[in-house]
């Protein structure tokens, strides 16, 4: 039974898809024979097939759209390279403040580390008595007067100042 569509040429719903296969030449020989037998008996389907065949002729009259020019692929690749460059520049622009901040942080950290190391080395030298000097002092202790050593606390400083004044 023909389907009730809004256009004039309607086929049996069962044969709508079959008709497309037939037009495309995609039906097996047996299926094509079955369909042809049906169309022989069904006027609606026969009309629909004729109209569908005419539509193929009508639509193919115009032919396909114009194809691309010979330089199309090269133009595409140039556009891709341009887009890639833009993307890299954009990416670099996005990371620039973070990179700059990281460098500043690293420089500050290095400076702080340097100061700490210098301070630490000074303190260590100060806290550890020099072994060689200590040994020498030990040997010459009995022969020579007490070698000059830096005052250890405030009282010693005051004593040193008083001694100096007294000597003068």
């Amino acid at each position, binding site marked *: 039974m023909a389907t009730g569509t809004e*256009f004039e*040429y309607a086929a049996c719903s069962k044969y709508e898809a079959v008709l497309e296969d037939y037009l495309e*030449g995609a039906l097996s020989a047996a299926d094509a024979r079955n369909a042809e037998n049906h169309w022989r008996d069904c006027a609606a389907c026969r009309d*629909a097939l004729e109209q569908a065949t005419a*539509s193929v002729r*009508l639509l*193919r*009259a*115009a032919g396909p759209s114009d194809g691309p020019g010979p330089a199309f692929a090269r133009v595409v690749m140039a556009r891709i390279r341009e*887009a890639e460059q833009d993307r890299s520049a954009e990416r670099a622009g996005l990371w620039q403040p973070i990179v700059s901040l990281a460098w500043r942080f690293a420089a500050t950290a290095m400076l702080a580390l340097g100061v700490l190391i210098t301070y630490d080395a000074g303190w260590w030298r100060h806290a550890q008595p020099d072994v060689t000097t200590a040994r020498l002092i030990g040997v010459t202790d009995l022969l020579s007067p007490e070698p000059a050593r830096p005052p250890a606390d405030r009282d010693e400083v005051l004593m040193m100042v008083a001694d100096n004044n007294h000597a003068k």
Partner: protein
Amino acid sequence: MVASAPALTLPLDRKVKKEEDRELVRLSQGGTETAFEELVRRHQQRVFALVGGILRRPEDVEDVAQQVFLKAYLGIKRFDQRAAFSTWLYKIAVNECWDYLRKKKVRPLVYEADLSEEQVSRLDGIVSADRPPEGPNARAEAREVLDRMLASLPEQDRQLLVLKEMEGFSVQELAEILDLNVNTVKVRLFRARGRIMDVYRRRMDAGKKSAGSRPARRNG
């Protein structure tokens, strides 16, 4: 009498081409630019046909087609090759066309007018006697007339007919590109054919009537 069907011709080396495409995609994913350029060369004709079929505006086709390949290049690392490269690429093309039309806020076709007497007679010749127009001018005219007729169809019908009959896409390809069931495509195509033939018949009748009502030209 039953009309004879045109034979379906599928390229014999289609499988080989698909395999080659897979390899080219793999190389492109690894950053080989020349491999992608080869993919562009292989698919540019079909992408042009697809974009041209949807937009029907020759002046916009090249720009949109370039955009399609650019998007494909930028997304190729994420393409898992479960579908064929061509299917993936054509889907990008369809989406790009719709984006483009949406941005431009235009319908693919906007004009409709009556046919002249000469056009009616030429179209009649094409349809009844299968006489394809000869020469680029005749084809351009046929295209213009057809575009006018297709403008009166729903968008999906127009798209299916143009891609199938003018641009040469198969039912299978259309189903993959438009995310439709193969049977749905067949049924919709069949109905779209009925609609375009209705439009054709109405235009032909109107053209013949207007030619008949025109006063005869007097000589001297």
